[in-house]
């Protein structure tokens, strides 16, 4: 499967298919259903310094072709993650990308510092979680200076490759991507979920206690793909594309548009075999189209 290996900065993946943060827990949950060794990388649920309780029910709501979620970043926190979750993941022959998120620049720094000595492959800096308020004005990833600052500081503190995960809820995602590139990010992950709302017409209340929730799934695919296109135009570092990827054709759309790697999110819930199906599909695609290497396709979009 050598033709499938891709490079994300200094990080070499055996294939371009990852599982997206928050949709694959810490790996354990899916290990009984698929062979984790086959994945290009596993991105963990975003962790915070302290354990987080998360939001009250309901946390999920199906919409046409999509899923709204408002988990509220429930996670075990740094200490338990390092003690219990990371050792489990380390047993597997796949790349481990640890997603971190914080409520302040300081918290990101503390996380990066604390994780410095741990064994894993890259840090994904989630500055775009729609379920927690970052600044008074919005998300970190809606502010180019804060995005720059967080990525820069995390990069300085950590020896690992840093991936910046951006929000699509922005006028010009290219500006943020550029700031992250300048700050030293090895790659840009696009996209986190889109801000959405659902209303219970019986009670006249928002479905979610947090009012806003994040939309993912096939419904957002064309929107996510356009964001990948915009980011690719803005930066020279690799892009990790995601948003509604359900099969090989979806993955190819992202790769052609410029994604060096793709991630499956809610697709894992629909069918845990989707990531492996895509890997197999891409290999067959290379073979039957006489491509030696997936790199020949990445960013091959002819405009």
């Amino acid at each position, binding site marked *: 499967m050598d033709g499938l290996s891709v490079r994300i900065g200094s990080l070499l993946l055996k294939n371009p298919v990852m599982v997206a943060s928050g949709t694959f*827990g810490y790996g354990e949950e899916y290990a009984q259903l698929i062979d984790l060794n086959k994945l290009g990388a596993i991105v963990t649920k975003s962790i915070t310094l302290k354990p987080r309780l998360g939001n009250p029910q309901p946390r999920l709501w199906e919409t046409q072709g999509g899923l709204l979620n408002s988990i509220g970043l429930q996670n075990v926190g740094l200490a338990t993650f390092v003690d219990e979750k990371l050792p489990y993941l380390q047993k597997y022959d796949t790349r481990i990308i640890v997603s971190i998120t914080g409520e302040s620049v300081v918290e990101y720094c503390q996380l990066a510092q604390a994780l410095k000595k741990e064994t894993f492959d890259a840090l994904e800096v989630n500055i775009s979680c729609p379920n927690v308020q970052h600044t008074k004005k919005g998300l970190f990833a809606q502010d180019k200076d804060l995005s720059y600052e967080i990525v820069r500081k995390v990069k300085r503190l950590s020896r690992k490759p840093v991936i910046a995960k951006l929000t699509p809820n922005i006028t010009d995602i290219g500006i943020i991507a550029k700031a992250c590139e300048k700050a030293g990010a090895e790659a840009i992950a696009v996209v986190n979920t889109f801000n959405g709302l659902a209303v219970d017409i019986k009670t006249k209340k928002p479905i979610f206690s947090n009012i806003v929730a994040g939309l993912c799934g096939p419904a957002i695919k064309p929107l996510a793909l356009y964001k990948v296109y915009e980011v690719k135009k803005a930066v020279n570092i690799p892009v990790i594309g995601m948003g509604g990827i359900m099969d090989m054709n979806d993955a190819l759309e992202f790769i052609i548009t410029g994604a060096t790697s793709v991630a499956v999110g809610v697709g894992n819930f629909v069918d845990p075999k989707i990531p492996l199906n895509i890997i197999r599909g891409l290999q067959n695609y290379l073979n039957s189209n006489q491509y030696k290497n997936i790199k020949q396709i990445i960013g091959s979009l002819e405009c």
Partner: protein
Amino acid sequence: MLQAKCRVLANSLICGNFFKLVLQNKSIAAQAKPGQFINIRVDKGQDLLLRRPLSIYLAKDDKLEIIYKVVGRGTDKLAQVKEQEKLDVIGPLGNGYTLTAGKALLVGGGTGIASLVFLAAALKTKFNSVPTVLIGAKSKEDLLCFTALEKIGCAVKAATADGSVGFHGLVTELFREIVAIFSTHPSMVYACGPRPMLRELVRLCRHFRIPCEISLEEHLGCGVGACLGCVVKGAKNEYLRVCKEGPVFKASEVIL
């Protein structure tokens, strides 16, 4: 836990709006314990994205049986599946009931009774003792599994909201009467049903100091514990996953 394409051996209306689905899969059936569930992909396309969780009503040899009620788009789609088609199933999932010896009392409402039938059969096999079962329903037509439970040998009592059969009133009211009559309290109460029923039952069990296990429902995302979408508030103010720590919880573990 495994994922398999299971052949549909039967899928037909049993009464009211309730269907019985019979699936063929030896491995899942062999692993299944009372209180566990399976997660079915009802739409091959992407219209209805998420799987639908359904409790195991019976698992024997290579057969898995489910009783479900059509309440929305997913269960409606499921009701249209024909014999010999295949369904993509993940299971068995979650933690089931704790099988304990003694005089058990089972309380089920609506389709909640399904998992209790499986439990009753297991209790009989393991301890050679049959539990008493209380079934709640809106009306006679919605009363599920009565004869199945009698066949197992259970003493079965019904409560209907309209009084069309058995006790006229809520199953929790029947429960209160029965417990008052019993010379000794049941050693254990197992319950599955709508949230208000469970809430009242847990209150009563606490009052009578009877240990109680309840099976909870939430809308699931992944069904395997990965997404944290399906939580219920735990007694220590933490959130517990219905699909992983549950669906069966000790009444003392959760806040309803």
